[in-house]
């Protein structure tokens, strides 16, 4: 079972060197224990482009599809047997990156 752990940011600050170091330690642990699938950091919402090609001609729009105060700045995809394990890992991840996270199951 895979879960998406989204990292939620409520300000424009990038991760501090301390946060980066803690994230590295957490990532190593995920890999060592077999929970790791993938992870990445994302550019700010201002770097997003929305594409709509449902009408035959692709429309490109600058910016995120919805402007919000809080937005996703990164994510982990983890492999976990159930939500209890996923929530525990997410709690560790939140502590490591010093931000709120959201857990959602893949279907």
């Amino acid at each position, binding site marked *: 079972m895979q879960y998406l752990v989204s990292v939620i940011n409520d300000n424009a600050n990038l991760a501090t060197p301390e946060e980066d170091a803690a994230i590295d330690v957490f990532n190593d642990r995920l890999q060592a224990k077999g929970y790791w699938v993938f992870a990445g950091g994302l550019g700010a919402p201002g770097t997003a482009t929305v594409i709509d090609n449902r009408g035959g001609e692709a429309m490109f729009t600058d910016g995120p599809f919805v402007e919000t105060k809080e937005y996703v700045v990164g994510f982990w995809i983890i492999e976990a*047997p*159930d*939500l*209890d394990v996923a929530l525990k890992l997410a709690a560790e991840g939140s502590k490591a990156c010093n931000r709120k996270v959201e857990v*959602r*199951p893949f*279907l």
Partner: protein
Amino acid sequence: MTETGVQQAITRAHREEWARVVAALAKRFGDLDVAEEAAAEAFATAVERWPADGVPPNPGAWLTTTAHRKAIDRIRRENKRDEKHREAQMSYADDPPEPSGPIGDERLRLIFTCCHPALATEARVALTLRMLGGLTVAEIARAFLVQESAIGQRITRAKAKIKTARIPYRVPLAEDLPARVSAVLTVLFLVFNEGYLATGPGTDPVRHELTAEAIRLTRLMRTLMPTDGEVAGLLALMLLTEARRTARVSSSGELVALGEQDRGSWDAALIAEGHQLVRERLASGVAPGRYQILAAINAVHTSARDVRDTDWSQILALYDQLVRLDPSPIVALNRAIAIAELDGPQVALATLDRLEGKLAGYHAFHAARADLLRRIGLSRESRAAYDKAIELAGNTAEVASLTRRREQLG
């Protein structure tokens, strides 16, 4: 057997076996939806068949076997209807499930799943009353004065989340147990409190069916986790509160304060049972949690034959202990009420006024303040505080009692 005899047997079987049947099916099929529906169908079949066929010698086994067959029927029907989902179905066998002992009681898994912290509190409450308590959606809706469709939706959503996000069907690991037990007890206490001090206009001030259900489920929890101190504490707290139920509302529908209740009408058996639990926890020598301290406070109150015999210094000592564990303003408010009995209303009022910032929207704060102001002869200030309390109170019997007190001011 007479018709009433069969009716009683069905009611008893529902009360005693519902949770067991749902839990056994949930374990076997890994799906709460299937478990709930098959259990409901099995009980409907009992209602149909038992009057003609007689009550089976082992109603629980009959219900489990019948529910098991219903579940398999349903899964087969769905598989036929939707072949592509066949692979996604859990594996099952045709033989009935093994009976399990008290330690591996499936109902414990069911409780922890229904009270999982990833579910919204109101969903936990509805799901627990449905899955463990066997209350119908209509009954839950009535008890909480919520539209039936809203309760139905809450339960459906919760079940969907359990399935899709894979909330596990198991007893939590030892390291997580205290927090998870606490989440279960919160749900049970919430159900009890809604029955004990029902909110909303036009309802009975005390809804006995909710307090009774909460006690029944807490008793079950106690059977399943007999050594847990907080489980014992919550059960004792509920019993000692329930014991005063009939004395709490006057014939004219007013809430009667603890000090003015007819102590002779308290339920002696419930009090004895509650006191026994409190003594058991004291003898354990383990530091008590929140519910155990609250139970001990209620044990002190219910030990006094007359309100004037109340050991207030003992009560204050218990509140001091509680404040260290739970520094919430509501605990501080109740502590201040004990201070009034020991050091007088003036001292208590000073303590109370420091809580105003946090409790200005809480009716009990204004009610306590009104009472203290009345006792020191400040009628005008007391009246204003009663006004505020009446405006904020949700319980009809409490409003009636506050209104009378306000009218009695000189």
